[in-house]
């Protein structure tokens, strides 16, 4: 569980996060949504410990990042997996090398044990035949799967994803969303996803928080998002004609 209490963050005098508090539950897929510039990425980087909040605290199962010793911080980082927007795979390594990288860095496993673990996670993300390929030789969807495999190879307690399905076609985006959701349930991970994608919200959003100008404007579940009267949320979520019609149908059905 991740507990965020009243965090503030500014850069060069510009206040980016303005007193955000929330709780991300274990075993749930938590989504952060909001327009570009709303502070989503800064918020995610604060959760990851890459930025220290100016005020407030972030507790990961009772561990507050800035209060930890460097060794404790390193141990905590090994409990985190991150899927970047552009996958951030190491170009100079094969798919297998990318997945084995955290194991090589932080464990004393033998080569065959690392190989077995890499085979297992690659199979889990349905990538059986790309072990020896380089990131530039595989598709965007496959790169995302490798990034997920690398993020879960150390059995993390927390999984963070920044726009995991950006640049993917709708079908592949759903596959990636479902994969993250399944892994969250299977390994009982606290997953936090930054997204713009309303399909993701409707598919896997067990808890959603909406940020606007660095403030938490709204939070709820995917069911709540249909009912909410919050104008900022409805303007953001139902900005497309398709979603406007879906919402209309839902309201009519309810009445």
């Amino acid at each position, binding site marked *: 569980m991740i507990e965020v209490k009243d965090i503030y963050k500014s850069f060069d005098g510009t206040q980016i996060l303005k007193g955000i508090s929330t709780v991300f539950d274990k075993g749930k897929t938590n989504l952060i949504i909001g327009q570009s510039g709303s502070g989503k990425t800064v918020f995610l980087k604060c959760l*990851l410990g890459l930025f220290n909040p100016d005020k407030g605290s972030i507790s990961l199962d009772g561990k507050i990042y800035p209060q930890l010793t460097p060794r404790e911080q390193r141990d905590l*980082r*090994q409990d985190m997996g991150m899927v*970047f927007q552009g996958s*951030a795979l190491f170009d100079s390594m094969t798919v297998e090398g990318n997945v084995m*990288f955290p194991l*090589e*860095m*932080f464990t004393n496993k033998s080569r065959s044990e690392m190989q077995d673990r890499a085979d297992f996670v690659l199979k889990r993300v349905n990538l059986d035949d790309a072990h020896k390929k380089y990131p530039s030789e595989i598709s965007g969807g496959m790169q995302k799967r490798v990034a997920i495999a690398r993020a879960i190879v150390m059995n993390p307690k927390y999984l*963070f994803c920044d726009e995991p399905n950006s640049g993917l076609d709708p079908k592949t985006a759903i596959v990636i969303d479902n994969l993250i959701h399944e892994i969250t349930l299977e390994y009982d991970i606290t997953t936090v996803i930054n997204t713009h994608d309303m399909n993701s919200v409707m598919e896997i959003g067990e808890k959603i928080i909406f940020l606007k100008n660095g403030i938490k404007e709204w939070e709820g579940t995917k069911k709540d998002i249909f009912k909410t009267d919050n104008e900022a949320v409805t303007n953001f979520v139902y900005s497309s004609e398709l979603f406007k019609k879906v919402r209309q149908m839902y309201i009519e059905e309810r009445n």
Partner: protein
Amino acid sequence: MNYLASIGSYAIMIKEVFRKPTKWRIMKSLILKEIDELIYGSLGILIFISFFIGGVVAIQTALNITSELIPKNLVGFATRQSIILEFAPTFCSIIMAGKVGSYITSSIGTMRVTEQIDALEVMGVNALNYLVFPKIIALLLYPFIIAIAMYVGIFGGWTAGVLGGFSTSADFIEGVQLDFIPFHVTYAFIKTLIFAFVLATIPSFHGFYMKGGALEVGKAATTSFVWTSVVIIILNYILTQLLLGQ
């Protein structure tokens, strides 16, 4: 003010490079990879340039000897002194700033742009140690290629001087051996080692702290070449004054 801030950031970067080392098993392979890329990969171009520059130095010297009173062995002497004192350590380092420096900046800069450095940091890896330290260690072998450049440069001078009819082989070799001061080689290697550190760290600094996209990677590589060259030239002056000045 910006320059001062950059010097401060550079100093902090150097400190970070030596903190929290990467596992030796991984570091060993990274160092070998960098030796292959930075040292072995530069050998060809440095040999090629050294040979022809040595030749040009010999021809220019011979053409400028107009007085009969000047001994013919001056061609070999001047070639040796120019190559050992300046060409091999300094001129080759400027060439390396272009070849190796821009490679280092663009490779680290691309890793920054594509969030690969963020990925390392999120995993708890000291990205500066992982990326920069192997380059510093690999470039400790830089004096070896400079020693080869010295040899090839003098050989180029001999080839141009003798085959071009500017000097006899005996005169040239006599000049090469004339008044040889071993400390000049030591001075050249001290300079080379310091330039090697500059070649590894300034381009890394420009790549690691760059902001923006692909266009900025190109700009960072150019800026890194300019600053690496400027620092090498300033250090060359200071080291010469310190080591050879009275």
